[in-house]
């Protein structure tokens, strides 16, 4: 066997495996997309073929209703507010942790880093009691502020390690030119840290977008439901109408997949560095 033929055989197997795995990912999604174009009768009798006839009503009726647009708007609003606040608060703390020396620094930093161990799931019940006492139920702040607080550990860890890579000379020069610490942070450090800020923002957006437990307990008012809560409620409401639920799920996927297409690099880089840095 020639080496060339050898690689060709090897490549055949590599592609075969990759295609099989790819099919496991894509087939359920395609089942959803096509299923949304069928009616429930077709779903039972014609599972694998293309819809015949195509029934766009599932999609069009959802696109024409606030049951989709309202949660989409809420999710967007909450994600953006979370990211802006989180990046601001975390970068300030990370700046201090990275570039100042003060008593108790390592203790405080360890406290924040240990926060990685306390996910929403563990804290959701007391958090709910607390938010109720603070009258933050049915208020977007009731979701935004906890999301910021729980996002701090990861964001501070990533930003601190990035801030440390910026040479001390830059800061020294800025200070000699009369820059205050705040001026340095705001006018020099943040602009220099744009790649790291992009990474943590993308992670925060995905986390906020997919958060389910917190909005589920905070918002009893349907007007505030986010997309994950909306999907779950829609499924409950139309339990017998599989095709319609599929259409809703597919539409709800689109923003996340679109965002993924744009921000894949930051997301992958952020997850890899989030897991390996700290």
């Amino acid at each position: 066997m020639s080496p060339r033929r050898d690689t060709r055989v090897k490549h055949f197997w590599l592609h075969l495996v990759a295609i099989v795995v790819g099919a496991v990912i894509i087939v359920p999604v395609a089942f959803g997309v096509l299923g949304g174009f069928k009616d429930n009768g077709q779903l039972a009798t014609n599972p694998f073929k293309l819809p015949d006839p195509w029934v766009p009503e599932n999609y069009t009726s959802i696109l024409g209703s606030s049951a989709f647009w309202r949660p989409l708007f809420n999710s967007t609003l909450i994600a953006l507010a979370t990211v802006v606040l989180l990046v601001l608060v975390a970068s300030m703390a990370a700046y201090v942790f990275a570039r100042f020396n003060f008593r108790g620094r390592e203790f405080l930093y360890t406290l924040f880093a240990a926060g990685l161990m306390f996910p929403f799931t563990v804290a959701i019940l007391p958090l709910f009691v607390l938010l109720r006492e603070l009258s933050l139920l049915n208020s977007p702040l009731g979701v935004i502020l906890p999301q910021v607080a729980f996002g701090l550990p990861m964001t501070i860890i990533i930003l601190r390690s990035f801030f440390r890579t910026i040479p001390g000379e830059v800061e020294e020069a800025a200070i000699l030119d009369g820059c205050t610490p705040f001026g340095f942070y705001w006018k020099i450090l943040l602009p220099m840290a744009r790649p790291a800020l992009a990474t943590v923002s993308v992670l925060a957006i995905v986390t906020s977008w997919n958060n389910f437990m917190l909005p589920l307990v905070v918002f009893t008012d349907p007007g505030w439901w986010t997309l994950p809560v909306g999907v779950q409620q829609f499924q409950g409401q139309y339990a017998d109408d599989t095709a319609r639920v599929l259409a809703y799920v597919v539409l709800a996927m689109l923003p996340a997949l679109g965002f993924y297409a744009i921000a894949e690099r930051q997301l992958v880089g952020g997850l890899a560095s989030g897991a390996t840095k700290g």
Partner: protein
Amino acid sequence: MKTTTQGPEGHLPAPTSHRTGTRDGAARPGYAPEPRRPRVDGSLRRRRRLDKLTVALFLAPAMALFLVLVVGPIVLAMYTSLFKWNGFGGLPEDFVGLDNFRRLLEDEVFIGDLRRGLILVLLSVFVQLPVALGLALLLNQPMRGRAFYRLVFFAPYVLSEVITAVLFTMVFSPNQGLVNQLMSAIGLEGQQQEWLANPSTVLYALFFVVSWKYFGLHMILYLAGRQSIPKELTEAAVTDGAGSWQVFRHVTLPLLGPTIRISIFLSIIGAIQLFDMVWVLTGGGPIHASETMAVTMFQYGFRRSEVGYASAISVAMFLISLVFALLYQRFVMRRDIEGAITTMREKR
């Protein structure tokens, strides 16, 4: 979780003193030892005071949010777990000591949660992670379209657990679902199941969905780990006559050790917290066959108004994560190269 007061990077001078408010010597190499710019004492003191003020002001917002919304709930849960409380009307009054925890140890559902969690962890470690590792190595080969494959394999990670779960409710649904339709198409009618309604299959169906969503994450981690192994090492092994299995076994796998350990860590922590997917897919049923600790806690806390007992479950989850994390850091990850890993180690 040990607290070091040492400077971050080894090659830079350690900070001179922790008591002064001077800036970090490590961040400013060469600054501390030599008084380069002769300055008046007063100006330096003003600078130090300014530094202290900066530290306080810059940390305050993060500190406040973190203490109130992250640390606060944990403490609150510890307190309320000592009461019999329905969650309403101010603070709880009916103090019961550790009764909730005693009840927990006799609660068959909770014990079952632990057992099911363990099964999910074992399945992840022995099925999902090896598959992810294999695919990462596959995508590390020079082949056409690998960027596209990577894009597809990782895509489920960005979908929310809820969306994934609703989609798979349909995929596993008994009559119109994809799985059963596929089985009848290839002549396996006899094997058709109500996958999510059958206590003996539901946990495996759940595991499949969890893996479908998360294997891409582990694959990405392995891929990043694999790409950070210098080419020279594998090439040297090949030159020395090692076959591809030997290269994998004796070069790649050991060097991926830190990544593998972090990925196992993430799977276990993930299994302890698993909620959204179960809640939407099965609600924990049938007859608790897919229930997790988080679902049990949610049921008691938000559906049955046994907030005291549910708090005890929260505290148990917290302690299990904490003890596990500490032990894992101490005994499993400690051999890892400095700075390579650990989410909690504060060096670096």
